[in-house]
């Protein structure tokens, strides 16, 4: 994609440090990736892979124990790591917004829907309450809430789960951000409601030219929604690239195993490829590649030395010693 990326992470690291400073958890470790305007990036990983910490890092809303220990985050050319808290408050909710997993926990039960949807508009644009409320009503219509006129005056408990999640979406887009980060936005929703919500997000994205970052453990959402995919394992980005390329020709053994471990509607008789073992403890990572103990293709070097980032294709990266081989294989295939 042409032009400057909207968001560019460059060797970004966020660590959790215990009170005595003895235990360091490398939740996000040297992660580099880019997001262009209007693009959808899916970040997948298991619990503890660092994907949520990465989202909190981009918004600079980390818990006190966590620190950004290195790297840069260029958003529209400005480094977010160096911004002051006051400057971040101007960006958060206005230029970068976030949708969280549990809509009941992200809405305040004591305030009306109108108050909550208009709050970011009033804070960032300092418009009077009445006109902010009018905007809120239009936003509810935009996220397809029926009878928006009465709904703005209601409270969260009067809505269903699907409606609450759409309201959280309306708050997210209220100041027309450039980047929307959605952390597991549909895990609490039923299947048909999930389909409605994903379609809505895609329509909003097209209308506003939003860049979307989906944080999920569900490869199906990535297959349905995303242009780019980033796979995280134990705090590191193990593979990233265009979705179709990564799905068709995954390079990292973890990505391969993950793709083979999901059941498909059409195949009952095939045995699933399970990934043996457990994800590692982030405070006591193995010396070499963190996936080596569970990897079926691991060899001696993997256990000794952590692999650097290789680029087996255009915008396709993989942290695996096997990646250079995959690269030549890929080139040969292209030549044929």
């Amino acid at each position, binding site marked *: 994609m042409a032009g400057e990326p909207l968001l560019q992470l460059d060797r970004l690291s966020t660590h959790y440090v215990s009170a005595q400073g003895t235990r360091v958890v490398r939740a996000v470790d040297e992660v580099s990736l880019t997001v262009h305007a209007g693009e959808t990036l899916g970040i997948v990983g*298991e*619990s503890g892979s660092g994907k949520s910490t990465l989202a909190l890092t981009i918004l600079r809303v980390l818990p006190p124990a966590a620190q950004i220990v290195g790297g840069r985050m260029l958003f529209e050319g400005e480094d977010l790591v160096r911004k002051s808290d006051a400057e971040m408050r101007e960006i958060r909710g206005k230029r970068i917004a976030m949708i969280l997993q549990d809509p009941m926990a992200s809405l305040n039960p004591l305030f009306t829907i109108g108050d909550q949807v208009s709050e970011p508009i009033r804070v960032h644009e300092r418009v009077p309450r009445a006109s902010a409320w009018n905007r809120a009503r239009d936003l509810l219509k935009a996220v397809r809430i029926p009878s928006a006129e009465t709904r703005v005056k209601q409270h969260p408990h009067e809505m*269903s789960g*699907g*409606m609450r999640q759409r309201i959280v979406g309306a708050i997210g887009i209220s100041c027309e951000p450039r980047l929307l980060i959605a952390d597991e936005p549909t895990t609490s929703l*039923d*299947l*048909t*409601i*999930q*389909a*409605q919500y994903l*379609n809505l997000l895609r329509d909003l994205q097209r209308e506003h030219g939003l860049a979307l970052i989906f944080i999920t*453990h*569900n*490869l*199906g*959402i*990535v*297959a*349905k929604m995303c242009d780019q995919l980033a796979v995280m394992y134990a705090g590191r980005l193990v593979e990233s690239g265009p*979705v*179709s390329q990564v*799905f068709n020709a995954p390079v990292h053994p973890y990505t391969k*195993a*993950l793709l083979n*471990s*999901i*059941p*498909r*509607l*059409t*195949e*009952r008789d095939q*045995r*699933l*490829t*399970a*990934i*043996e073992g*457990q*994800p590692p403890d982030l405070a006591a990572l193995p010396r070499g590649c963190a996936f080596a103990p569970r990897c079926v293709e691991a060899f001696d070097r993997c256990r000794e030395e952590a692999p650097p980032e290789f680029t087996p294709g255009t915008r396709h990266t993989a942290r695996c010693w096997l990646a250079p081989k995959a690269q030549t294989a890929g080139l040969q295939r292209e030549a044929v």
Partner: protein
Amino acid sequence: MSLLQAEGLTKHFLAKRGLFGGSQGVVRAVDGVSFQIEPGRTLGVVGESGCGKTTTAKLVLGLEEPSGGRILFQGRDLATLDAAGRRTYRKSVQAVFQDPYASLNPRMRISQIIAEPLVTNERLTADATRQRVLELLDLVGLPPRAADLFPHEFSGGQRQRIAIARALALSPKLIVLDEPVSALDVSIRAQILNLLRDLQARLGLSYLFIAHDLAAVAHMSHTVVVMYLGKIVESGEARRLSLAPKHPYTQALFSAALPSHPDERREDIVLSGEVPSPLNPPSGCRFHPRCPHVMPQCGEREPPLIETESRFVACHLYGDAAAAPAAADRVAAG
């Protein structure tokens, strides 16, 4: 003979309405549901929240008494069993639940957790019990030293293995699996699904598999039942049903399932609205307010569950050929 047969199974709950619980409504959680579970086979139940799948599981487990209909186990009606018969039934039907963090007592050692059903039901010596616990641990792929540890020392996937070992302790014939993998990490899910299938092949178990992940249900089940607001709308052989669903709700549900590959393109049937409250279900076919193929009779008459092309479907589009052959063609073509 079927291992377990449900005939017209019904469960109604009384719901208090209003501040002082004055007027009462009836929630028809499960309303006239019939199915069979064959020995060594898996019956999958899918549906969205409020469709009655968990209540069905509770009825099968004997945790709720049915308000109507009956359950036959190996041909005997559960309602007619005496105390000893009920006891035997409860031993033959076990459960594995969704959250292995909540279903294991944190103060008990793994050996105690797995041995608990043995201690209450079978008089074994301490040595024999220990022996059985080690056998069960081996069966679910855990090392013998796990017996002396506590649940917090295990990951989610290992905890689910412990829950499965406990369910196997009394050599049951049927295991109710209520969302057994949805709380687990993606890379662990396949381990547990493979383990469940291996155990089925090895021990000849039957499963009642409840999940909202359609691909997992299709992968695990021989027969699938689709529920909507307490009713079965469609049932049939798992693969055929998931590849060519007939009921408009099943079609929408499977079209909403996420693709497993970016090139996989499904017909997009997006339902409007949400599942209505079971306290006040729509008249006629309960799906008709959201149905893309709705016809005048749908709001008036409830469609019966009829057999068509080795499938059971409850929809006015099928069966009664005079009703709307054109519409049925349209659905089949779509």
